[in-house]
């Protein structure tokens, strides 16, 4: 089966301005089946944007290969680009054009027929609340509005693969919600979405599979339940006590949680260790201070991410 996105042993090295050799990507491999939303996570400098540049054919890999809908990004770069709609990290808008022309020119440059482009422009402008500013020149607009236009543009196309490099950065929460919902809908209709983000809750909510990158290498990849298995000895515990006092806090601190937050009678802890030992310790504590409510669940993506980063460094 041909995957929508295939990356095999991709390496990318370049010379820095100081003349040092920098390994931006070091043997990264993954596949994304059609219709899936795949997240690329990692701290700054992890290699996410380099990978996006390789997949969107801006720069070739130093070695390895990558393809979009079966088209090699180096040998068949034009064919690969015909399958793509890309939002780069940098806010890229046609600042010298109006909002209307930004949408239309983007569609024309992707060989969308003028009549189709005009029709889509009206729909997209309405959906992204751009109707009132269609004739405004983009350089006069705020950064948030530019970001909105940049993301709106990809819905002018029906390219099967969408690549979004931190696309929702700078977007207001309501619009962000609308974009996320729309992306989910696009994936249901068979479009494949590759998303890089540092907003882990966004990835957790949206992505069906995730790869965590650090310093050009894959730290972990899989679906969210698969990633949770990597942190089987990590638990998030929510407790509601009848009362909290200094003695209780000392007892909780003695458990050496990775995180401890006390908010009135509610305690949130991230605990690393054996589940049975945790439960036994909590049972002991409850003898002196009754627990009214008790919830144990697996770690969030953010907690997995932080744990993996700590392990790596």
């Amino acid at each position, binding site marked *: 089966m041909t995957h929508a996105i295939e990356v095999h042993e991709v390496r990318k090295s370049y010379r820095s301005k100081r003349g040092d050799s920098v390994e931006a990507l070091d043997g990264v491999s993954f596949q994304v089946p059609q219709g899936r939303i795949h997240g690329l996570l990692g701290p700054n400098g992890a290699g996410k944007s380099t990978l996006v540049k390789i997949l*969107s*054919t*801006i*720069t070739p890999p130093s070695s390895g290969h990558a393809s979009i809908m079966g088209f090699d990004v180096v040998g068949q770069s*034009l064919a690969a*680009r*015909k399958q*793509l709609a*890309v939002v*780069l990290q*940098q*806010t*890229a*808008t*046609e*600042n*010298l*054009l*109006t909002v209307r*022309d930004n949408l239309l*020119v983007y569609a*024309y*440059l*992707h*060989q*969308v*027929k*003028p009549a189709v482009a005009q029709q889509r422009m009206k729909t997209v402008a309405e959906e992204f609340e751009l109707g009132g500013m269609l004739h405004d*020149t983009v350089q006069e607009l705020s950064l948030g509005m530019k970001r909105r236009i940049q993301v709106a543009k990809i819905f002018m196309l029906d390219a099967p693969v969408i690549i979004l490099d931190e696309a929702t950065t700078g977007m207001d929460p309501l619009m962000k919600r609308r974009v996320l919902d729309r992306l989910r809908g696009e994936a249901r209709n068979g479009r494949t979405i590759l998303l890089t983000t540092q907003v882990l809750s966004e990835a957790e909510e949206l992505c069906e599979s995730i790869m965590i990158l650090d310093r050009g290498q894959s730290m972990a990849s899989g679906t969210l339940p698969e990633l949770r298995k990597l942190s089987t000895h990590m638990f998030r515990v929510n407790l509601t006590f009848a009362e909290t006092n200094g003695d209780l806090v000392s007892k909780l601190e003695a458990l050496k949680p990775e995180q401890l937050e006390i908010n009135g009678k509610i305690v949130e802890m991230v605990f690393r260790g054996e589940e049975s030992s945790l439960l036994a310790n909590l049972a002991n504590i409850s003898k002196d201070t009754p627990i009214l409510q008790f919830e144990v669940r697996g770690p969030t993506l953010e907690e997995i991410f932080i744990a993996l980063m700590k392990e790596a460094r």
Partner: protein
Amino acid sequence: MSAITAVFFRDYRQRMTNIGFVFWDLFVPLAYLVLFGIGFERMMGSGIALEGQAFSYTTFLVPGVLGMVTFSVAMNTSWGFFMDKDSGIFYELLTYPITRAQLLIGKISFNVLLAVLGSGLAVVVGGLGLGASVRWDLLPLTAAIVIVATASWFFLFSVFAIQFARMDAFNTVLSAAYILLMFFSSMFYPLSNLPIWFRIPAYLNPMTWQVDLLRFSVLGVGSPVPLLFEGVALLIFAFVCLVIAVRALNRAA
């Protein structure tokens, strides 16, 4: 819509949305022609002698203004190119299903058309409005020179637009190029009466080659052998600028 037509449309909309560009493209050269032409013609009294023929200063200036049109159009386009890079759209353009050659051809096509229109306007204003004796029969040759020259300047200034990261540095280089290339050339005055230190760089300046060729096509004046050399030199200049621009474009990606 084909890729080249789409790039053409993009540049057309950029110019139409920012009408100040058109002012610099078309009307500033015309203002030079009318104001400089009339002012210097009255100041000098007698005309300018070239190859045994006498021309009014306004007539002499018409080919220079055509050179200025090609230069202004190319400068404004390269400024737009710099803005594209600065805003990040340049890199996004590289993800579109168009080749880099289509991108360059589309941009050149629009700007060449604009330069031809601007040059036509200058010839009409000079010939019909200001009484310059224009060789209407050589207009196709004039158009060909304008096309090659606009493309050359566009390639050259695009290299600057791609290379420079800071707008102040880019603007400084463009302003310096504007002053040096226009005034160290035969655009405003015949070079034959100027000191040798002025003439040597002026004869090496592609703007001189272009204006001398235009002076032949617009006014019918010039010696065949030097013009042939200047024609070949202008073509080589255009080709070298194209190669450098393509390399710079690939390196920037």
